[in-house]
């Protein structure tokens, strides 16, 4: 493998570092920093050809449309998706999942040819299976859908290290009620654990249920592929992978999408509008009402090019080494690591992206964050939009340091120095 130097070698691509000297950014799981190429692509669109796309009958609109649609292709290429897969632009993972939940609520029997448990729409006591480890964006939309339809949400419990309890399947038959949806995140935003979704995928397939993956923390940290996900739908966000905020993707099979009811009504999503009613456009446009995030999509195109140049295998390897280094340091100091140990990660027993939740006995995570901030280290402390996981672990919050391509061992050393300062101040 051709290794591309990361860490300090790429920091000059990110204006953030020059503008924030002395800041150690360890919050990329919340959002990643943006390289100049992304900022320039957005500026170029807004400066030179900031016109609307689709149906423009002049050259600039054609150019904008082509650039926008080229990003759709680039997204599908990035996912190594086969021809029958379509990518819908949304405003983020959260909207992608809400789109899916709202559309599925409106489905009657259109999905029967694809999913045997969908001979009818969602009904009372149908099961939506998620896990305790889900981000609220892959949890609340399903609870809301359940509330509207009478379906019930069932939660797969998590183990202490953040992995999913696969034995949950054998203990639950799912035969008394119809399993209609299985919606799981591929990688935890709290523990960084890359979940083994195989048993849950098989369960969905066996039952003729829809299998959706929240890939918000997966796609940005490792080489992934449509075949590897092997899902009916995947959702993710651009801003976690060097792209702009306000843009996400919902990808799914075109034939399935073409029978699904729309999400929002408005321009672009229609075929023919009459007073008596409207017929809808084909996917992906059916699900993209209104002027889409054009600048954001174009910026995302530049981000994907940048990541392709680096190579996602390199990204994964870099984060893996850095994560193992950080975990070993935390363990050496006797601080609590919520998630797999450095041994688990180094041996490859558990795959883990660069999100590390930790704690210091007797010190509130917010206090850790406050002192680290004074030392110039930016981390996040809180429930990380995963209150069920916090409840399962019996903690109100954790401190979380998260890594990306521009971090290196110096950043981890500064984190550890900061934590020693916390220890000193709190006399722990």
């Amino acid at each position: 493998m051709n290794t591309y130097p990361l860490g300090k070698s790429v920091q000059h691509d990110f204006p953030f570092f020059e503008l924030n000297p002395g800041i150690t950014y360890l919050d990329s799981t919340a959002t990643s920093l943006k390289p100049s190429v992304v900022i320039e692509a957005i500026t170029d669109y807004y400066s030179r050809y900031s016109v609307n796309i689709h149906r423009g009958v002049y050259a600039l609109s054609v150019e904008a449309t082509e650039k926008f649609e080229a990003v759709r292709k680039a997204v599908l290429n990035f996912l190594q998706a086969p021809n029958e897969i379509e990518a819908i632009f949304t405003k983020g993972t959260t909207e992608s999942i809400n789109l899916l939940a709202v559309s599925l609520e409106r489905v009657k029997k259109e999905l029967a040819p694809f999913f045997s448990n969908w001979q009818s729409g969602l009904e009372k006591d149908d099961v939506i299976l998620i896990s305790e480890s889900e981000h609220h964006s892959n949890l609340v939309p399903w609870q809301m859908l359940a509330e509207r339809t009478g379906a019930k949400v069932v939660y797969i419990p998590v183990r202490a290290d953040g992995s999913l309890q696969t034995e949950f399947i054998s203990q639950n038959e799912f035969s008394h009620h119809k399993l209609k949806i299985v919606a799981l995140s591929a990688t935890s935003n709290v523990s960084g654990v890359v979940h083994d979704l195989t048993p849950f995928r098989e369960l969905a397939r066996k039952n003729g249920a829809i299998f959706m993956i929240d890939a918000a923390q997966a796609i940005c940290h490792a080489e992934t592929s449509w075949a590897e996900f092997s899902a009916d739908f995947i959702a993710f966000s651009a801003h976690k992978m060097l792209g702009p905020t306000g843009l996400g993707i919902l990808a799914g099979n075109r034939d399935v999408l073409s029978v699904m009811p729309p999400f929002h009504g408005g321009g672009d999503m229609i075929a023919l509008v009459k007073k008596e009613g409207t017929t809808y456009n084909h996917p992906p446009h059916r699900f993209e009402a209104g002027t889409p995030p054009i600048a954001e999509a174009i910026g995302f195109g530049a981000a994907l090019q940048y990541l392709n140049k680096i190579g996602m295998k390199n990204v994964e390897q870099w984060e893996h080494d850095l994560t193992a280094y950080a975990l070993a340091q935390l363990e050496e100091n006797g601080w609590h690591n919520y998630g797999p140990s450095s041994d688990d990660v180094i041996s490859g027993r558990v795959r883990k992206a660069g999100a590390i939740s930790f704690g210091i006995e007797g010190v509130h995570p917010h206090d850790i964050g406050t002192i680290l901030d004074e030392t110039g280290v930016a981390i996040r402390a809180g429930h990380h939009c995963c209150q069920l996981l916090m409840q399962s672990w019996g903690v109100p919050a954790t401190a979380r340091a998260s890594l990306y391509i521009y971090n290196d061992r110096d950043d981890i050393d500064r984190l550890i120095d900061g934590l020693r300062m916390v220890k000193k101040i709190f006399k722990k």
Partner: protein
Amino acid sequence: MTDQIKKIEDIEREIIEEFEFFDDWADKYSHIIEMGEALPPLPESDKTEQNLVPGCQSRVWLVAEIQDGKIFFHADSDASITKGLIALLTRVLSGQPQNSVVTANLDFINQIGLGKHLSPTRANGFTGMIRKMKMLAARE
């Protein structure tokens, strides 16, 4: 409650002088944490949803009692720095006439050398604490 109480500005000056003694920011934090530890415990029954200070990421409970036009605060938090901050505010404002609390400008915050940390948008919700204390003091 007939004792002559110190004026808010006098307590503020006292605190500023106290903090001048530390030249290291870490020691200032240690001092704040110690002030929190010295707060009398708040009964569990007072740790209700209603008594939470809005806008704080960590939990801060604040209750007040009013006697003869003076307001007395009792508070607690699950995070030590936040608890120290509410202790600092309690030291300045507890026992003061209601109206003095409402109109206090609390400029000492900017003078104890932790101003960067105590800015209004910070997650510790310092502004939220002050607002809640003033709202409690503004009641009948």
